[in-house]
């Protein structure tokens, strides 16, 4: 079995900066990303990004710069590689390489990002209804319109704010904006009309910005403790100040640890990479403590606030499992 000092799952801003932080301190580091090109959200979010090594670049250029930096520090980056499972002792199952592989890691860093939430409303299954980040990917990565160019943007949050500018820059028109709760979509086989806040108009595309939730399934499979945080997008993994989970040697960074910004994902990646490095005694604990203090000073709202879950609350509605069951 192939073994690395550090394995990073996810090649977005958090994963790339984590891999760079570990590799530049001499650790044998591998990074797996399921997409054909690494970069994650940087590939479709065009706002300028301040990189850890100085310099400010638009998202797609920042992604390329981070990949170049990682390769320069001899990170083994595998794209099109799906890390489908993780097992105790940090064995990661990966498909999409030359063959199916099981990769062993001394330290495992999960930078698995987040997934857009879906929403239910009349006509929600019509072709042309899609998530906000899906529309950004189509416009910015794949350079194609999913139908006509008249777009309704519903919901709120950072993606909704970016969406109007993205639609305009790509040559489209925002025909409606409003709340998901008031939305109805209709059409014969595809989106043709929307009704937002009681106003009906023709449209071709509906971009749903209902928020995002952290992708934490791999951390849960390794039995990391989780809790509920409304500020961070729902159930998140509990982490120490160095972003280590309740499982020693397992770190979570970026949106997977709670919905944040590109800037916080970059900083968390660096911190998680350095924490793994310190635990393998390649940098001193005092150096790591300086990084922890700097991170907490720069991103005070990222210091985790897991709200208490009372043991008798019903946590799983279908199976009627209470939060305290099994404890």
């Amino acid at each position, binding site marked *: 079995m192939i073994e690395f000092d550090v394995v990073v799952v996810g090649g977005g801003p958090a994963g790339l900066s984590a891999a760079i932080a570990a590799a530049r301190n001499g650790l044998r580091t591998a990074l797996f990303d399921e997409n054909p090109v690494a970069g994650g959200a940087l590939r479709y979010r065009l706002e300028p990004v301040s990189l850890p090594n100085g310099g400010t670049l638009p998202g797609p250029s920042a992604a390329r710069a981070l990949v170049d930096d990682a390769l320069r520090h001899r990170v083994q980056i595998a794209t099109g590689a799906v890390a489908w499972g993780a097992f105790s002792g940090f064995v990661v199952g990966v498909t999409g390489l030359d063959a199916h592989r099981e990769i062993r890691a001394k330290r495992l860093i999960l930078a698995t990002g987040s997934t857009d939430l879906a929403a239910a409303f009349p006509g929600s299954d019509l072709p042309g209804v899609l*998530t906000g980040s899906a529309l950004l990917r189509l416009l910015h990565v794949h*350079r194609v319109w999913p139908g006509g160019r008249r777009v309704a943007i519903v919901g709120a949050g950072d993606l909704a704010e970016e969406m109007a500018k993205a639609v305009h820059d790509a040559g489209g028109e925002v025909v409606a904006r409003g709340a998901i709760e008031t939305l109805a979509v209709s059409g014969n086989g*595809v989106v043709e009309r929307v009704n937002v806040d009681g106003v009906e108009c023709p449209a071709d595309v509906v971009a749903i910005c209902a928020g995002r939730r952290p992708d934490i399934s791999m951390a849960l499979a390794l039995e990391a403790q989780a809790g509920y945080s409304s500020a961070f997008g729902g159930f998140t993994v509990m982490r120490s100040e160095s972003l280590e989970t309740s499982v020693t040697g397992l770190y979570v960074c970026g949106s997977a640890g709670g919905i944040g910004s590109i800037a916080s994902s970059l900083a968390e990646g660096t911190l998680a990479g350095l924490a793994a490095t310190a635990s393998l005694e390649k940098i001193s604990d005092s150096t790591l403590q300086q990084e922890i203090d700097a991170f907490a000073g720069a991103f005070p709202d990222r210091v985790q606030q897991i709200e208490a879950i009372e043991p008798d609350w019903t946590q799983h509605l279908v199976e009627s499992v209470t939060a305290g069951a099994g404890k």
Partner: protein
Amino acid sequence: MSERRISSHPLLGPLPDVGMVSLTVDGVEMSARPGEPVAVALLANGIRQFRTMPKSGNARGGFCFAGRCSDCQMIVDGVPNVMACVAAVRGGMRVETQHGVGVWAESTSEAAS
């Protein structure tokens, strides 16, 4: 180039020219950029319905475009349930609309095993 493609963009610049390849969709020949997701090639050719659902029969056309939601499952080179939003275009590919539940033919299940 189709106007569905975003050939120029104020922040991203011009769409680079590449040698196009051809694929068939339900028997009709179309052109696509090699390596792009099948779903993107279909959208660029004006096709917005990728599959129909097993129960409702409603058409679906892709929702997440990130390999998660299964709205875009199609039959590619005879193999059902291929997520068109992540499967990469190759020249000569045969893409078919998937109606209802994907059915594995004897020959394709042997070929895939």
